[in-house]
């Protein structure tokens, strides 16, 4: 039975991964460490596990794999410590805010000979898996172009603090789709042009809207909207959509459009509770199995690094006002 721990509950996805650990068979949710003890203790109570305030005690507590869900800029330090202690790692996306940090994380895990995964749960969303199968079967023929969105509500907190997030919406909401397109087409991104700014939310320093014009190997034309543009009163957190223009046809996927429309007069809110399968469960299940089998998680650290390369180039493009090559 794999023993898994979670490092930091700064990122809200930690709560979903924790619930997955408790829902899955063959895994023990062994411990939580958090640099904010109050938050870690509350999470330990909520999920029925123990909180260890001392990082060395946590890493020495028999945990075999760790899920890192801290602020983006802290990923590197935590991952390096966990890797040095021989732990398998599932790191929240983006793998890191800079290429240097992302490369350092990959190198640390390689040196320690531990598995490193990046948390891109969209690869486990049933609708996207179906589209992947359609493309792999050749149903669509050659892929010519795609237009994508990853819109969200404003997450607030450290997400909009450059010192902790290392970027804004362009970073937070590009990496998922960049990874999905690499996975769907098997091609790498080559260049990007980006317009971004802070236009929707006052009193924050980071960008909250980014439009990316990208190209992939073979000349695939891709455009993408990364935003924190969904209103507070919007019925759900946001979306992941991709329209793919292929040789034989067009497929449009709205990955989380398995929902009910609920209107509640008590709160005067409309909401879209989802009823589809939870992609996080597939992601966490693969990580647990990777730990058990001492293999690499299916979505690797390199996948995380490649997505970071796209966002880093996008920010540089926005700064320079011209097209920028994406580091291979």
């Amino acid at each position, binding site marked *: 039975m794999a023993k898994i721990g979670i490092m930091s509950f700064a990122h809200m996805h930690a709560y979903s991964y924790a619930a997955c650990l408790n829902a899955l068979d063959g895994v023990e949710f062994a411990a939580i460490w958090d640099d904010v003890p109050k938050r870690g203790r509350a999470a330990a109570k909520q999920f029925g596990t123990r909180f260890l305030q001392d990082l060395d005690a946590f890493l020495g507590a028999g945990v075999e794999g760790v899920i890192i869900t801290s602020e983006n800029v802290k990923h590197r330090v935590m991952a390096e410590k966990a890797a040095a202690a021989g732990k398998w790692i599932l790191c929240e996306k983006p793998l890191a805010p800079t290429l240097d940090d992302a490369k350092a994380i990959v190198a640390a895990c390689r040196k320690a000979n531990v598995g490193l995964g990046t948390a891109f749960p969209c690869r486990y969303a*049933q*609708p996207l*898996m*179906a*589209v992947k199968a*359609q493309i792999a079967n050749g149903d669509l023929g050659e892929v010519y172009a795609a237009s994508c969105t990853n819109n969200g509500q404003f997450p607030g907190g450290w997400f909009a603090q450059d010192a902790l997030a290392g970027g804004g919406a362009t970073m937070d909401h590009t990496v998922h789709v960049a990874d999905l397109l690499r996975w769907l087409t098997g091609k790498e991104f080559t260049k990007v042009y980006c317009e971004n700014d802070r236009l929707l939310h006052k009193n924050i320093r980071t960008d909250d809207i980014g439009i990316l014009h990208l190209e992939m190997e073979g000349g695939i034309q891709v455009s993408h909207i990364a935003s924190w543009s969904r209103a507070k009163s919007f019925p759900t957190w946001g979306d992941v959509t991709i329209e793919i223009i292929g040789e*034989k*046809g*067009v*497929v*449009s*996927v*709205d*990955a*989380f*459009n*398995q*929902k*009910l*429309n*609920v*209107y*509640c*007069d*008590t709160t005067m809110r409309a909401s879209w*509770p989802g*009823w*589809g*399968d939870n992609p996080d469960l597939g992601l966490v299940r693969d990580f647990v199995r990777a730990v058990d089998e001492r293999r690499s998680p299916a979505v690797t650290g390199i996948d995380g690094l490649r997505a970071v390369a796209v966002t880093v180039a996008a920010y540089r493009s926005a700064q320079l006002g011209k097209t920028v090559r994406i580091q291979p």
Partner: protein
Amino acid sequence: MNVAIIGCGGMGAVHAQMATNCGLKLVACADTRKPKAAALAGRYGAEVVSPKAVLARDDVDIVAITTPTPTHTGYVIAAAEAGKAIFCEKPFGRTVAQCEAAIAAVEKAKVKLFVGHVVRFFHEFEAMKAEVKSGKIGRVGFVKMYRGGIFPRGEGKWFHDYAQSGGVTFDSSIHDCDWLRYAFGNADHVYCQALQRSKPEPIDYAAITFRMESGIIAHVIGTWAHPQGFRVRTEICGDKGMLQFNSEEAPISVLMRAQAGGGPSMIVPASPVAVSPYQLEWEDFLGWINRKHKPRVTPEDALEAVRMVSAALESAKSGRPVKL
């Protein structure tokens, strides 16, 4: 455990796959049209036998009955007398009397009977039930359900014979009637209009209204009148809010370019799930057989669903409300 299929049309093929997914072995296939049985049996390495011979085999633990509706209960009774566990596709029978006779046979033989009211296992319908239970929309007063698409092309065209199939009211809207009862309790009375046209081509369209014992008014539309496609819509209104589901708001839509000699073809919007509701109902049935839990659908539930749609057709015929 081993399973045998009686009735190797579209639903027979679905349940052969689902039973196999659950770890059962398909050992025998029977159909009055032998080539149909041979085709299905060939895919699973099963034997082709007569329906009678299926029930005589010792290596068959579960019999799945996926024949035209009027023949269901005859096979259920014979399978019960042979001591088999029984999976029967919905509708349970063509008449209330048939279903009552089948329940008596099942009780006498002390075998388990599960009728495939699969909508109880759809993720979206379970989500709706949970939302209602959460109280977010308050006390429910009105429900509208809508289901259908093209007229089904069952082998032998038995769907076209309204005396056999009961049309969309009996064969398709029974899903919604059963779910209404599952979610909101028994119905008190029903009023129904059923189009049931045969010429120049078969077209059926049903409008059904139930008054539930709780006072809830429920309206059910069933269509086999659309030139193409299939859609499901549900709306539930309460004193504090409402909720809607629409299958056309699906995550995937595909439009293919014209192929040589044809126009562009629309593929039905897709909404994939990890485990099919048809497999979930088999898992539920097997859990009941293995004494792990009670079934989500009892034989009495299936009988009551037939009672609801029978009353609806009676109302359509008489033009009067029918008490349940």
